[in-house]
């Protein structure tokens, strides 16, 4: 539990910027470490392809995650199978670790409702676009688990530095403190909320400090160090289930950077300098872990090449699969609004179907 009980200004680190060991390496097997590396490479490659699909008009607006793989993969790998994840909209890398297929993420950003139909047994909530609203759901779900006497599950919730300014952040963490719920609140502090810098969100010295007021542990971690993120998240997950004399919830502030635009609709050169981007790129989580794994004999040129090839194939397959899914049946929009379709909605659907039959789908399509 020691990593959690510290000054919120003190940042947990295991690897330095060059992949050198400066902290205690978490207890992970060789395969798990290589898997961590592969998952990060997969997320990075997926991201690159997704941005280019958007550029080519093959997908809608997309929020890139490059730079944030250490936080996403390090934290999701620290979860147990029965734990639950409540994502924001940028968590596709971590979602894969939890079993959400890339195809599903692609479909969501391609504008298909099925992208939100979470695969059974992944224990991942649908993407939350309205900022920080998911925090309360994570608290409520954790609370329900506790009320039902289940001590076996932790509930992790992701949100950004900007998200800590919303009322829902306060309310979610406050309830968690009061009802001592098994939550891990994971703040991806990537320094920016679109164009607004972290200092404009709070005058608090760190985001981790905020936990003090809610009565539970707050810890800052180098979010571009996947091993440090793993360690801190693992401790928080274990504490959520076996709190001992501590409160169950934890606020983790993972300090990191988004290398790319906020979304494909954003132009970051308007509000930040290249120098700043370069400074943070020196902390890139992927080469950092790769160096560590090579130096400890867990990776070599050959295995790195194999990873490259396999992630490229996996992403290409996912894109093929997503693009082969036809446009949903238009009348699907009337489904799943209520358990039972009310009469007036059925009439609207019937009118719509009748007009479609008369004029054909083309008559509705703009572009």
């Amino acid at each position, binding site marked *: 539990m020691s990593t959690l009980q510290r000054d919120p200004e003190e940042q947990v680190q295991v690897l330095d910027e060059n992949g050198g060991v400066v902290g205690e390496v978490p207890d992970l097997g060789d395969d798990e470490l290589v898997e961590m590396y592969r998952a990060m490479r997969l997320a990075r490659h997926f991201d690159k392809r997704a941005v280019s699909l958007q550029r080519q008009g093959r997908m809608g607006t997309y929020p890139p995650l490059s730079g944030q793989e250490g936080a996403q993969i390090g934290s999701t790998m620290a979860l147990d199978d029965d734990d639950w994840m409540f994502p924001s909209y940028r968590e596709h890398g971590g979602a894969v670790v939890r079993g959400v297929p890339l195809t599903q993420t692609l479909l969501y950003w391609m*504008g298909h409702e099925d992208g939100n139909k979470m695969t059974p047994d992944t224990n991942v909530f649908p993407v939350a676009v309205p900022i920080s609203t998911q925090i309360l759901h994570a608290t409520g779900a954790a609370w329900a688990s506790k009320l039902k006497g289940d001590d076996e599950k932790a509930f992790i919730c992701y949100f950004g530095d900007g998200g800590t300014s919303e009322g829902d952040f306060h309310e979610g963490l406050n309830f968690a403190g009061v009802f001592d719920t098994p939550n891990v609140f994971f703040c991806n502090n990537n320094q920016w*909320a679109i*164009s607004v810098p972290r200092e*404009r969100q709070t005058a608090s010295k760190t985001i981790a400090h905020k936990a003090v007021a809610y009565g539970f542990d707050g810890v800052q971690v180098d979010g571009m160090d996947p091993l440090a993120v793993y360690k801190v998240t693992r401790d928080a997950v274990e504490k959520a289930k076996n709190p001992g004399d501590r409160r169950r919830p934890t606020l983790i502030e993972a300090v990191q950077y988004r290398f790319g635009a906020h979304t494909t609709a954003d132009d970051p050169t*308007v509000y930040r300098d290249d120098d700043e981007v370069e400074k943070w790129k020196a902390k890139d989580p992927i080469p950092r872990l790769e160096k560590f794994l090579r130096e400890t004999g867990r990776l070599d040129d050959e295995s790195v090449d194999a990873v490259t090839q396999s992630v490229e194939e996996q992403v290409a397959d996912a894109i093929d699969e997503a693009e082969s899914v036809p446009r949903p049946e238009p009348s699907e929009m009337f489904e799943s609004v209520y358990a039972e379709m009310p009469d007036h909605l059925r009439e609207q659907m019937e009118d719509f179907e009748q007009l479609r039959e008369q004029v054909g789908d083309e008559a509705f399509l703009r572009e």
Partner: protein
Amino acid sequence: MSLSSADSDQLTLVDGVREALRREMADDDRVLVLGEDVGKNGGVFRATGGLYDEFGSARVIDTPLAESGIVGTSIGMATKGLRPVAEMQFMGFIYPAFDQLVSHAARLRNRSRGRYTCPMVVRAPYGGGIRAPEHHSESMEALFAHQPGLKVVVPSTPSDAYGLLRASIRDPDPVVFLEPKRIYRSSREPVDFDAALPELGEAVVRREGSDVSVFTYGAMVPETLEAAEMAKEDLGISVEVVDLRTLSPLDRETMVDSLKRTGRAVVVHEAPLSGGLGGEVVSALQEEGLYHLEAPIKRVGGYDTPVPLHALEDFYLPAPVRIAEGIRETVEAEA
């Protein structure tokens, strides 16, 4: 001060918004702009582009990410003599501010018996049709039109965006100013910066016709004009199109006058049909014009479902073909 950034003879709707803000800020130093990404970034749609450089960080303010905070502090500012113009990044994200809008901005004058007032504007891009992600395409104007004490304004042309926003900023009461983002950049027109400002609460006839009146607003205005053209060409129907412009208070006089001329009416909006503004328009028309009606009034709207993700949004939004069908039905109906 130079006010030459926009060429007055070729403005888009979003240019009109920006020019209104610039000129109000230049003319009245009580006016300030606040919101998420409105400063250096100039707004995610660039509606506040250049204002930060021109007026500085004390009057063009990037706030923490908190809509209730933005609107609630704007209320406080307005009571102290400032004229805040708050931006909500998208209408789908206005809900955290709903309490401040309906419980306070809307009621402050009334509950303080006029002692405190709330001259402020809350701007928000609204509506679908731009292939945006989930929660970025809502049309929930009826929620605000339902609240006594708020005015609700929706421009559909660059000139109206300019004139109505300036009029909204000068209005003594809180105005929710909804911008149809789908047509932010779809057309240009000359804007007369020195023309008299339009009055809030006045509708305008966009197209004259004699067989049927279609009442609409915002991004549905161009769609309705296209449908009117289709109805004329295909069926020889003469369609009048009335752009409501202010949804609260409604301009019942212009509405009923038009109905009296045509005897038939259709209402078009992209918001869900049930509980939408169309119901209010129909009520006003029948209360004051029932004896002129020759057919039931038809509503064409978004369906009573959440706005689907963008693969299906073209089927959800009233397309000209659907509006034209509503027009045909109304004109062919036997009284």
